[in-house]
């Protein structure tokens, strides 16, 4: 009995839900310390769970003791544990950062919203049920929209509203797909569906899969559904942008991957090429827009649009046990850490200069060197230079493409890397210019600089610990 009580798996969901509602209850921004302590515990829980999964294989937790299809199953396999680790690893430094970033008043709503956001992420990564995935997705989207609107400025409200509308429409499409699947098969459990969907499924299944895919792509902001992302991510407060870009868009990507590997595997091939082409377009278009914008955070946000493209390049290359899957997960993890670092750094730069344009950066290098270094390190990951996680991801992707003779993807990957280098160096060059005489810099808490640096360093160093990750990723449910 005590053993069940100490199981890290359910606590990864219960704990953030608990501290989120307690933070709401206490109010007045007093949730920060609680959140950081709880996040430290969550990181430890995720590590314990990873160790357990590595040692004993994938774990299933039947909520309510009923088991699928009557009840809901939670599943912790290698893929979900890796995403859980990423979530806690990004959230903890960002929580420390946010406590310094926000005023006391702004924290009143930040902590509860963040708590629910993280609970939704953890629940989503652990879910093995189509309808339960919908609920977690809904929780995630609402928390994200609330966080975008947090500042209350008209531009933020407008971005949040647009995000909300896209999000609700996308959820609706996904839900309609779930309803059709339930109508066709009588169950919504992933494990239960997998054997039921054959190689040539009926029209209803194809329609359902199409609707679900469209909804998830809109949530992931894959080109051409990316239009909502730059204003939402670029306009929100820096810690919020970091959470959204690093984690939230990954959640819907994770679902696409989970469904394509799981019950909808027979249909995945049909959409693979389309997803690859959209991904490639996203890389080129997002990088180009990042290169031509004049606002720091819009640059980082457009870079997210581009980097999300890489995630979808894996679909035309996906083969059982192949390198494409490893590349995709590595890209998700490396980009998550790097983008969190980059938004955190951008927040420091903007606080320090008091401006949000690239021109305003002149001379900032001398004031916040650690931050600039963090920005550069994160840039190394985005460009895909060794030994970073980004390098490894792109390397694996190129290898897979070459192995299958699909060389056009290679050209896109290399072009994307060059464009990323261009926009990162554009920022760095501007920062090292001499400050104009009229420039005035504000002091920034040191802890914000160092958390950004920590995240950036992790995104680079993760490349050195890739073997464990690959081994963990290999853990699947015993058939």
């Amino acid at each position, binding site marked *: 009995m005590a053993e069940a009580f100490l199981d890290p798996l359910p606590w990864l969901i219960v704990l953030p839900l608990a501290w989120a509602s307690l933070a709401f209850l206490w109010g007045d921004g007093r949730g920060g310390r609680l959140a950081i302590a709880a996040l430290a515990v969550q990181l430890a829980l995720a590590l314990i769970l990873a160790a357990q999964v590595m040692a004993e294989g994938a774990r299933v937790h039947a909520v309510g*003791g009923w088991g699928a299809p009557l009840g809901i199953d939670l599943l912790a396999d290698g893929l979900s544990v890796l995403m859980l680790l990423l979530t806690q690893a990004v959230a903890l430094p960002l929580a420390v950062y946010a406590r310094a970033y926000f005023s006391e008043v702004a924290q009143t709503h930040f902590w509860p919203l963040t708590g629910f956001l993280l609970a939704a992420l953890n629940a989503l990564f652990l879910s093995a049920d189509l309808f339960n995935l919908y609920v977690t997705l809904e929780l995630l989207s609402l928390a994200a929209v609330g966080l975008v609107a947090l500042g209350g400025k008209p531009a933020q409200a407008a971005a949040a509203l647009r995000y909300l509308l896209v999000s609700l429409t996308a959820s609706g499409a996904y839900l309609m797909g779930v309803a059709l699947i339930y109508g066709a098969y009588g*169950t919504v459990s992933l494990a239960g569906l997998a054997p039921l969907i054959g190689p040539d499924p009926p029209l209803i299944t194809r329609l359902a899969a199409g609707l679900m895919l469209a909804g998830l792509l809109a949530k992931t902001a894959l080109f051409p559904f990316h239009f909502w992302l730059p204003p939402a991510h670029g306009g929100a407060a820096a810690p919020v942008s970091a959470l959204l870009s690093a984690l939230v868009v990954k959640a819907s990507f994770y679902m696409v991957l989970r469904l394509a590997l799981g019950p909808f595997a027979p249909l995945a091939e049909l959409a693979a090429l389309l997803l690859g082409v959209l991904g490639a377009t996203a890389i080129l278009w997002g990088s180009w827009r990042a290169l031509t914008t004049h606002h720091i955070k819009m640059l980082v946000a457009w870079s997210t649009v581009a980097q999300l493209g890489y995630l979808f390049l894996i679909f035309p290359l996906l083969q059982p046990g192949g390198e494409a899957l490893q590349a995709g997960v590595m890209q998700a993890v490396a980009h998550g850490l790097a983008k969190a670092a980059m938004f955190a750094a951008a927040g420091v730069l903007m606080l320090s200069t008091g401006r949000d344009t690239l021109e305003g950066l002149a001379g900032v290098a001398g004031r916040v060197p650690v931050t600039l270094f963090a920005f550069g390190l994160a840039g190394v990951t985005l460009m895909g230079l060794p030994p970073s996680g980004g390098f490894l991801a792109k390397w694996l992707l190129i290898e897979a493409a070459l192995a299958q003779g699909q060389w056009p993807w290679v050209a896109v990957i290399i072009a994307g890397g060059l464009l990323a280098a261009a926009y990162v160096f554009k920022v760095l060059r501007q920062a090292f210019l001499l400050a104009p005489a009229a420039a005035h810099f504000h002091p920034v808490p040191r802890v914000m600089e160092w958390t950004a640096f920590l995240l950036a360093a992790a995104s680079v160093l993760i490349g050195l610990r890739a073997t464990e990750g690959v081994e963990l990723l290999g853990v699947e449910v015993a058939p």
Partner: protein
Amino acid sequence: MNGPARLAVGGLAVALAGALAAAILDLPSAAVDLRGAVAMNLSASGVEHPVTAVLLNFRGYDTLLEIAVLLLALLGMLAVAKPESGGSPPAAADPMLRTLAGVAVPLMILAAGYLLWAGAHRPGGAFQAGAVLAAAAVLLHLAGRLPAWASPKRMLRLGLAGGFLVFLAVSAILLSEGALLRYPLEHAGALILLIEAGLTLSLGLILAGLFLVLAWHPASPSESAGEESKS
């Protein structure tokens, strides 16, 4: 929307409707019979009404997260509502409305209690009871007998989050039975009633809060001017 966009959206809708119709006409017979599974396990669920059994026992975890969604919706709206908009007292109402509230609100409380009780063996339950309670709160608000909600105080926040916290605590404590939300057979009925009672109150407050925060608009002149304010 301009013409071509309208046409495109319309075309998309028609195509989707057509595909849906075609898909549903081609509906295969479901491989899994969940209805049967629910009926078979109903006696072990602690309640007699299958819908309540699914909502609070078999798929109670979904419901837990859905309550969080509702709480979150309110939270998001509170985050957007401007803090300075909070203090204004609600409008004073005419005696007619106050009398209506005096008669209708106790009846609504009775109805909510009844729906809560009924949920165990027939349609009803926390959602419907909460909605009725919320209506009572809205009526009280229209009658000028509720304080403004733009920045809820501690007790109110406890009411808003209480139902969710009770549900979460019960779920977590039941880990001692081996899994999240695994009710022991002999206490299932009582625990579900406890959760539902908490949810009724919280859902009522949350739904009313959604109304009150959304309905709040700055300086409603017709309400505050010209009518005496309540002391």
